[in-house]
């Protein structure tokens, strides 16, 4: 428990722990494959992802490894480009989830006033509506654009974070070091950031992988439904939706992006799972 050194050592231990299980190894491999395709794919793309090159829905062949899509664009190039938008938006949504959810949980947990129930009932309301409905309504009200998608997705996911952070904060706030900090008269902000946050971060980040994969799923689903990223931007969700019409002549136009999304999501899930299991094992943590 002494500062950055032990934090770094335990994080290295955890990473080794993730790779120790079969699921973790498979997941890490899938994740590395997916992320490297997403980052470097654009450099390898043989064609422009938005140029019309031939007969719509043409089967693989003639220099087009995955064939052509519903308006004659190269499916391989679009697949190589198609993960960026989803990954970036999902990453930002996860950060927003932990920032906003964490702040709500910390404030609710440390305050012994009416602020706590008010915040937590507000969070409950978010859970009383299906996730996609929340996003659909916010898109309705504020339009289809990146920031709205990120905030909407994080609103759906933050109740879980807020609850965990709140209960962890409540738990920690009766410990000696917090009470003595209160007695020292430290301002609440310093109290939360210096005393509470470092001591609850382990519990709170345990399901980071799970929430990241939900962000990816939600963002990709919204793109698929046509209310997220708009064509002609190459995006896996958008590609699956628009290429259903050429499923019979060139199934790769649908299957390609579907498999890429599956690799990314399964990778994140397996790594997340291995990480949680690792935390549970008594030898792994501290």
């Amino acid at each position: 428990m002494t500062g950055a050194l032990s934090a770094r050592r335990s994080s290295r231990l955890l990473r080794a722990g993730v790779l120790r299980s079969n699921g973790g190894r498979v997941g890490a491999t899938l994740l590395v494959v997916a992320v490297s395709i997403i980052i470097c794919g654009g450099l390898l793309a043989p064609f422009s992802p938005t140029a019309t090159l031939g007969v719509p829905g043409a089967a693989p062949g003639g220099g087009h490894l995955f064939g052509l899509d519903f308006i004659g664009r190269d499916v391989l190039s679009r697949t190589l480009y198609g993960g960026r938008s989803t990954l970036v938006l999902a990453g930002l949504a996860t950060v927003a989830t932990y920032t906003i959810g964490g702040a709500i949980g910390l404030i609710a947990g440390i305050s012994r006033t009416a602020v706590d129930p008010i915040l937590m009932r507000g969070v409950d309301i978010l859970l009383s509506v299906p996730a996609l409905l929340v996003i659909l309504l916010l898109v309705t009200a504020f339009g289809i654009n990146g920031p709205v998608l990120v905030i909407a997705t994080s609103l759906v996911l933050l109740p879980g974070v807020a609850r965990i952070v709140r209960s962890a904060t409540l738990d920690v706030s009766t410990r000696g070091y917090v009470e003595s900090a209160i007695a020292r008269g430290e301002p609440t902000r310093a109290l939360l950031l210096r005393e509470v946050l470092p001591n609850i971060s382990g519990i709170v980040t345990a399901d980071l992988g799970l929430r990241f994969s939900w962000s990816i799923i939600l963002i990709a689903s919204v793109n698929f439904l046509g209310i997220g990223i708009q064509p002609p931007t190459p995006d896996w969700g958008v590609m699956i939706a628009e290429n259903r019409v050429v499923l019979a002549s060139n199934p790769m136009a649908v299957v390609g992006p579907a498999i890429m999304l599956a690799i990314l999501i399964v990778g994140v899930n397996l790594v997340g799972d291995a990480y949680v299991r690792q935390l549970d094992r008594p030898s792994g943590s501290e």
Partner: protein
Amino acid sequence: MPPDGTAPAPQASSPAPQSRDASPRRSHPVLRFVLTRAGAGVVTLLIVSVLIFLCTSVIPGDAVTVILGKNGTPKTVAALQARLGLDAPLYRQYLDWLTGMLRGDLGKSVVALAQHQPDPSIASTIKSPLINSLILGAITSALLVPVTLLLGALAGTKADSAVDHAISIPSLILAGLPEFVTGALLIYVTFTLLHLLPPVSLVAPGASPLATPDVLVLPVLTLLIVAVGSGVRQVRLGMIESLQADCVQFARLNGVAERRVLIRYGMRNAVANSVQTIAQNLQYLVGGIIVVESVFAYPGIGIYLVSAVVARDANKILAAAIILAALYTVINIVADLMVVFLVPKLRTELV
């Protein structure tokens, strides 16, 4: 999207033990729980309806322009706003909508008004998608519980065998995928490769999907694959755990038939542990159909909602959203009750 594991736990309010005998005219504890839970549901739904109304009320600024197009003069705009009741203050509009809705009047479609359709009322167009969705949801729910229990129990009793792996690994991988990925891959296999099933679930307007059951197969299968996974894992774990208990050893030593041991001692505890997860998965279906219907072009409330969002038809969004929210709340309450009734520990806490 797979169900969120963070749905609210049933709040079994447990009054102090002394109060039990204090008032002899105490109402029945279970009945009281049902009433409290239903009351909380109504309050939540009212708050949600206000929020939904606020979200869609941002559009009506557009609604008038949608109807009049670009050649609206300030005068015609004002006249139309008055006709649609948009000149009233917001709270007045909300109350009008709420009282109308409680009488079964869901308002008029803005787009239908703009196109001068003979019957712009939403109630007439939302009925058949709603019924179609309920059919899809009912069939899936009816299959969800037995399939979860069966697969979970099978994997749990034969833990670490080939059977277990054949169930556990796909349930881990498939349950995490979005509906439209699973659906697209299913279409690829059953339609493109095997020519077995139709790729889209076309249902003629006015016809029931039950008349052409093959259109239901893929949507139901997709929903099941996504919803079953977490429950199967939970039942499997519960089964493994409960079969290690002493009572199971004693039962076996006493010569109780293995079948009976599995069902009476194994299954019972496994179910108690997984009721919560299964209940959440049932609730997930309400949101899950939104995507699944779009994947298969199944004419239900989900497609109705998404197309209304794309067309920016405020009243339609409002109607579909409040119906889905109400369904979600009702299933939430039913799920909570199910958990309380099926898990003895929670049930006694109520008393």
